[in-house]
């Protein structure tokens, strides 16, 4: 069975989550094609062609796909996807936006955020904020799936030499248009790809105090995340939220500072390899998942920690 992977990209390069999605496709087995839909996305297509295990890259380079509007891209995915047995996309906000729309156009179900491939039609996925793992079996002819990147190793970005084919179809549904974007700029590593993540919660008290986390992160080469409470309170922007309804991270080291450890937060970070919690409340639930817990006032512990490493 052939597999179509929808690439996540910024026209110039391929987003890392695409590499994990290719690994999920390899676990299913079969010819892997990657679709790069965008505008001026030739460089991203070239990069996709080098991914290990990819046999073909389809490039749909058209203004209609420039901002990844779901109304347009889903039409393209449904058109191309009907010839495949599987359509996979990373479970990024972009994949989550477009793929269910394409699945409905094809009249098939979507299986969201798989964490393992059990067989050609059977997959595991977390439900109830990760408190339960469900094994699900699909009876659809085309299996439409989003992939939780942290559950699959990244395929090698180099080594492949897939054929690149242009796709002419330009679907413009004419229902939506892009207005503007405010993207967070940061020199720190990407939250979902970083080896170390330092996250702050309501205990940080305000946005200014997050500078303590930023300077610790810079010393560790880490990314900075946050709990929902910290985002809701306006300490930091929404793209930093880790959790059931935010980003899923699984770094080698996760340091939770002033975070209580609600199930919705744990859902986004409990697969981290080593978890450190710093909290002044010794009964905070975060300590139940922490490998190393430090009961302390964060305003004492953070400066000490930064100078000790």
């Amino acid at each position, binding site marked *: 069975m052939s597999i179509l992977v929808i690439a996540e990209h910024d026209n110039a390069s391929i987003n890392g989550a695409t590499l994990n999605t290719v690994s999920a496709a390899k676990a299913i087995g079969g010819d892997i094609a990657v679709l790069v839909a965008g505008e001026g996305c030739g460089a991203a297509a070239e990069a996709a062609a080098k991914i290990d295990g990819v046999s073909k890259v389809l490039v749909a380079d058209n203004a209609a796909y420039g901002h990844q509007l779901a109304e347009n891209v889903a039409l393209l995915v449904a058109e191309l996807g009907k010839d495949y047995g599987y359509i996979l996309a990373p479970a990024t906000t972009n994949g989550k936006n477009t793929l269910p729309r394409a699945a409905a156009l094809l009249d098939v179900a979507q299986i969201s955020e798989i964490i393992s491939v059990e067989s050609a039609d059977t997959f595991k996925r977390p439900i109830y904020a990760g408190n339960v793992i469900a094994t699900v079996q699909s009876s659809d002819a085309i299996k439409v799936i989003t992939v939780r990147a942290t559950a699959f190793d990244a395929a090698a970005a180099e080594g492949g030499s897939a054929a690149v084919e242009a796709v002419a179809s330009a679907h413009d549904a004419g229902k939506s248009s892009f207005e503007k974007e405010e993207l967070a700029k940061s020199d720190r590593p990407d939250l979902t790809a970083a080896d170390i993540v330092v996250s702050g919660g309501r205990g940080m008290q305000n946005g200014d105090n997050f500078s303590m986390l930023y300077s610790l992160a810079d010393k560790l080469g880490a990314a900075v995340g946050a709990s929902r409470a910290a985002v809701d309170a306006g300490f930091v922007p929404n793209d930093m939220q880790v959790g059931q309804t935010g980003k899923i991270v699984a770094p080698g*080291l996760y340091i939770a500072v002033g975070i209580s450890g609600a199930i919705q937060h744990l859902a986004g970070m409990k697969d981290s390899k080593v978890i450190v919690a710093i909290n002044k409340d010794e009964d905070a639930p975060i300590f139940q998942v922490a490998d190393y817990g430090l009961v302390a006032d964060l305003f004492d512990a953070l400066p000490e920690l930064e100078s000790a490493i």
Partner: protein
Amino acid sequence: MKVLVAVKRVVDYNVKVRPKSDGTDVDLNNVKMAINPFCEIAVEEAVRLKEKGVATEIIAVSIGPKVAQEQIRTALALGADRGILVETEEDVQPLGIAKVLKAVVDKEQPQLVIMGKQAIDGDNNQTGQMLAALTGMAQGTFASEVAVDGDSVAVTREIDGGLQTVKLALPAVVTTDLRLNEPRYASLPNIMKAKKKPLDTLTPDELGIDVTPRVKTLKVEPPAERQAGIKVADVAELVEKLKNEAKVI
């Protein structure tokens, strides 16, 4: 304009759900049920649109068992005008829900459909996008701001990189994210009033919709447990452990 909101009955977000010991299903015996938090935000947004004079009527729809009436009543108490329960004992999956909602949309012809981005039980994050596909409507998912302007709506979306604003032709589907608004509490008088608001009941059959699941759950199990960790005495011990034991810094 008419606004349709879809509300799902789910386990309360504070409940830590566990699988049954035989692994056939999750154990929902005697657990507290509630309106899905993202659906509550959807209702609140619709009510605010009505208070601004943009919305004229708010219809709350739920698909589920008879007891899902409770969640529709909650929506009515928060300010929805009438409710529709599409009653079924079947565990309907997102594509089936989207098809039922499309049938309701065809009947009611709303200009705006507001839904949650995600139901916190199945964590699917699909239904709004699927309804938009089936009806051919534009979609504004993960909304943190919604501004209706004549025959279009500007939706600011929470995306991985930050915020994105798109303009959608109406009718459209909007799905809510956490920062869209902070839902109000229903007052006692409004809870009483809600009991008298109209609530129609339909079935998927009456709507001519086949809700047979395409995906079968073979088993459910708890996630891998983490090994219990230790408490360190101070920052010095923490750093020592991270360097020499965990070897992560």
